């Protein structure tokens, strides 16, 4: 089992979700996050005052999936989330020791 964690542009969430659903994935966790990478922040100007906003809004998508799906799933996310411009985000893949479905006590691949 692996966990894929993708930081993407907020407006790409629908496309990423559809791409993962097409692979047969049945669940994901999504959170609104803020951060910066090479894109850096932006500047806001209110009358004479200028403010630099360092942290930009992004979406974090987390899915835990069986090993055999990892390659396809990460490729699907990358393809769906890409605009080719700076700030598209990143994908991280982590090993997962165990998964338990709370309702049934099922474990491992069956639980994800």
């Amino acid at each position, binding site marked *: 089992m692996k966990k894929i964690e993708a930081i993407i542009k907020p407006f790409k969430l629908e496309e990423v979700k559809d791409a993962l659903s097409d692979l047969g994935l049945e669940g994901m966790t999504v959170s609104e996050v803020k951060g910066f990478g090479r894109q850096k922040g932006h500047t*806001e*100007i*209110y*009358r*004479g*005052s200028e*403010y630099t*906003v360092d942290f930009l809004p992004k979406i974090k998508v987390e899915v835990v999936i069986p090993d055999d799906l990892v390659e396809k799933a990460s490729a699907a996310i990358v393809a769906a989330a890409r605009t080719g411009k700076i700030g598209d985000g990143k994908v991280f893949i982590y090993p997962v020791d165990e998964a338990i479905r709370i309702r049934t006590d099922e474990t491992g691949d069956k639980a994800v």
Partner: protein
Amino acid sequence: MVGVRLVLLLIAVISASLLCTSSVSAQAAAPTPPAATLEQRVTDLEQYFQNASVGGPTGTTWTSKIAGVPGPGDNAWLIVASALVLFMTLPGLGLFYGGLVRQKNVLSVLAQCLSIAGLVIIIWWAVGYSLAFGTSFTADRTHPTLLGSILGGTDYFFLKGITGAPNTDYSYWVSQNIFSMFQLMFAIITPALIVGAVAERMKFSAVLLFVTLWMFIVYLPMAHMVWGITGMMNGVWNATASIKAIDFAGGTVVHMSSGWSALILCMMLGKRLGFGKEHMAPHSMVLCMVGTGMLWVGWYGFNAGSALAADGIAANAFVTTTLAAGVASFVWAMLEYIIRKKPSVLGFCSGAVAGLVVITPACGFVTPNSAVIIGILAGVIPFIFVMKLKGIFGYDDALDTFGVHAVGGTLGALVTGIFASVDANANLATNLKDIVGKTLWLEQLKAIGVTLMLSIVGTIIIASIVKAVIGLRASPEVETEGLDLAEHGEEGYIMDHRS
């Protein structure tokens, strides 16, 4: 709890003075003129259409059947206009300013606007209207006294004798009780404008004490001098005014007085903690825009209502107000578009308010074409102040009360002297025909000087008193936590979806 003691003291003073007031009035009966003939009754009706007095040329040739009766049309407009002017403060200015502060202070701005409304209503009812628009300090109108040219009198304390009958010193056809309410709404918004400069750090009790003293030392004298029938700067209506200045709807009384006082107060108060370092961007430009729209709409009551009649002067003021606001809003944002490549919503809003401020003293005295020129000036000059000069001087006028209202009000007072024309307002021919279009602007400069002096010196004195008695600023802890929670025990937004 200094604040609590203050409020108790205020209530005690009011109740004491109420108990002491008993209205004993003895009026000498003048000989009654003959009853009006049919033709004279028709003349009275025609006078209504022309916003003039009944009863013949001096008002005493015949006994009019409609003397002391308000004119329905004029009265209806002033009732609506009064409500519109209140709407400018509640919630217009509250939202305009509230949107510009940080989320943790949004309620403090609203609380200050609301509390100023209540406080000023009490002052106005007790003594304020009388001190501004009474006349008892002037025994003989042909011989003005110093006191009588600065303050009105004690004749209308507790709104004594103020009924639905018009006071012909101010309007032939509007009920005096409505006139007093209309003027009250101006007295509410003026100190509320100051709130913008001291937002996010002045403590609530200090705002209450400051505004109370400021009403007596700055606002009431200003209102009387410019608009009181015995006022020393009421050039249009007071033939014995020592400064023959004009101010249709409050360039000096409202915008200059609040704006210059705001500058002094924010300098004495000091900058917000973290000013220039922390992120202090507006928490809601949406609220700010909503408030701006309300201000603009309410301003029609402010400007066109200041004709004190539903006449052609009011109609012209409506047109000039529209033109100046629209032009200034557009010019301000287009300047941003050219200089920064991005026209901002705050730019459109700031320009609209600047245009409204600058046209305020002029609206009933200038032609529509002059209003367009005034609109352009209003979009450029306050823009330069707010965008460039503020940064150079380094004071923390949090929401630009000075840059918009003081600069705009001063500019407006001056251009009114330049553009005022008898074509736009025939009343200018009554007492001012020799100086309109000639040296009127010099009289305007004098009025600007008096307003500056009173606002600056008055505010220095008042703020020093408040500082010595209860202090001006909230503690650093309160300021950091936010005034909403610390001073009002509430939060503006509780966005937790579970609750």
